[in-house]
């Protein structure tokens, strides 16, 4: 009788240990599931904060039909609306989204002529005018410089 009780006790102990191991594994999986924390933007770079992941997926549509896989926490993105997920050993996180505003920034260096440089994050359409008459219309790509012989007025907008 005592022997039987001991056996049951031992079996209960094993059962409890097994149950604990199982719970720990399930808990670990849940705990180690990738999670997204947030996105920061600084100096034209996007910083991603996430846990339990080794890469992120970024796409410009929520269906993730053409995602880009990035193995870094920082990347440079153009303006637009983005959706992202963190990817880890235990699957993918929920989807987050953020947007990057377009910046139209132009520097104008007036010396003997005029040099315009596109310092923004989108191609710029520049309309040159002199005395109220349009004398030029061109696209300046990001970081591109263009020289003009005259001292004119320039209007700069985001190119389509």
């Amino acid at each position: 009788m005592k022997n039987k009780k001991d056996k049951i006790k031992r079996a209960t102990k094993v059962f409890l240990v097994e149950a604990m191991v199982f719970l720990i594994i399930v808990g670990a999986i849940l705990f180690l599931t990738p999670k997204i924390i947030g996105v920061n933007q600084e100096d034209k770079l996007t910083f991603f904060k996430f846990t339990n992941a080794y890469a992120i997926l970024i796409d410009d549509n929520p269906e993730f039909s053409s995602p880009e896989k990035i193995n870094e926490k920082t990347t440079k993105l153009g303006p637009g609306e983005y959706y992202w997920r963190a990817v880890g050993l235990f699957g993918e996180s929920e989807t987050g989204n953020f947007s990057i505003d377009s910046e139209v920034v132009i520097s104008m260096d007036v010396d003997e002529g005029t040099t315009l440089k596109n310092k923004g994050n989108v191609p710029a359409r520049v309309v040159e005018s002199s005395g109220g008459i349009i004398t030029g219309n061109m696209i300046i790509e990001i970081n591109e410089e263009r020289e003009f012989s005259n001292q004119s007025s320039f209007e700069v907008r985001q190119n389509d």
Partner: protein
Amino acid sequence: MIKKFFVLGICILFLINFVFALGITPGRTTIDFEPNLKQEIAFSVINSEHKDMAVIFDVRGDLNQSISLNKAFEEFSASEETKSFSYSVDLPSEIETPGLHTAEIVAIEMPKDLKSAGTVIGSRLAVISQLYVHVPYPGKYLELDPQIINAQEDGNVLFLIAAVNRGDLDIGNAKATIDVYDSFGEKVAIVESEQREILSGQRIELIAKWSATKINAGDYRVYISVTYDGEFVDAEKNFKIGKNVLEIQRIEVNDFELGGIAKFNALVENKWSEKITDAYLNLIVYNEKDQTMADIKSQVYEVDSLSKTNMIAYWDTVGVKKGNYDGKLFLKHNKGSFDRDVTVRVSNDEILVMGLSGEVLIEKLKKSNLQMILIIAVIVLGTLNLLWFIVLRKFIMKRKR
């Protein structure tokens, strides 16, 4: 004396270099038309040169009557890099013509003492923040933006056709048919996307995959037609297949003796469907201090389409010691260039150029395998524990009975 000062003053004026810089963000805000929509839209002006300046604002465009600026003039001090502003949008109950309607917020840079300076002479810079309002077309109206056509490393080409339903009715079925033409104008493939529903105002991607593994590298053109509920819209786009136009298959140095002249023989294949011109090989070898110890160039070659050629370059190894050296290998040509970090192993009678084949894909594969193994291991362990748990429970229950 006065004359001298006058001349000096004029010279200084010519030598002075004026730098202006002005920015605005967002460059564009896009909204869909809603009757009587009232909305406040924020924007910022960027003083990226950190200058004392003033900015005056103006509104233009066919929607200018719907825009009211909250400020018409603002001064910036050198310490202020950006300042935030806003404008109010008050759309009418109806806009007759469908399509795109715009307004522009113009920020014009002025001297800070504008009020006292009066008229401004010389170059002027203005930046514009645009407001795009899309008024829906009656019925179904599809706009295409097939900008993403991605030639992938595995030889597949992915066509991503962004489609926006600018109509006021939902589209039940939209499907893209993509005709692919080579550089001679011959049709080489027809690819179709899946069928998709597109709600009014919705943007989706129609996706089609083309297995181009047996297709020659080169320039291609696609004609895309999208049919949607009995109507259709089309677009065209050029793209390239093949990342590396020229591929170095091997580099050999035969009959070499240290201290002599090494003859590099590189077998190069043109994978492009056109002749490649101005092609040459350039190997730069660095010493232990990362200084250039050799800059070896071949002559210029022409490589016919889909053919191989040997490129020859010479290196005088006088004073070179045995050892491994870091190097950079360039293959430049009229269609672009290719470069790769290599290791050059120099021995008494042999030179080996190592590192020509890429390793990125293998690394990716390993990572993916590890992930799969871990996931499978966790699932197996979990299942075993569960089974053990059930068996043990049954055993205890039996014992109790």
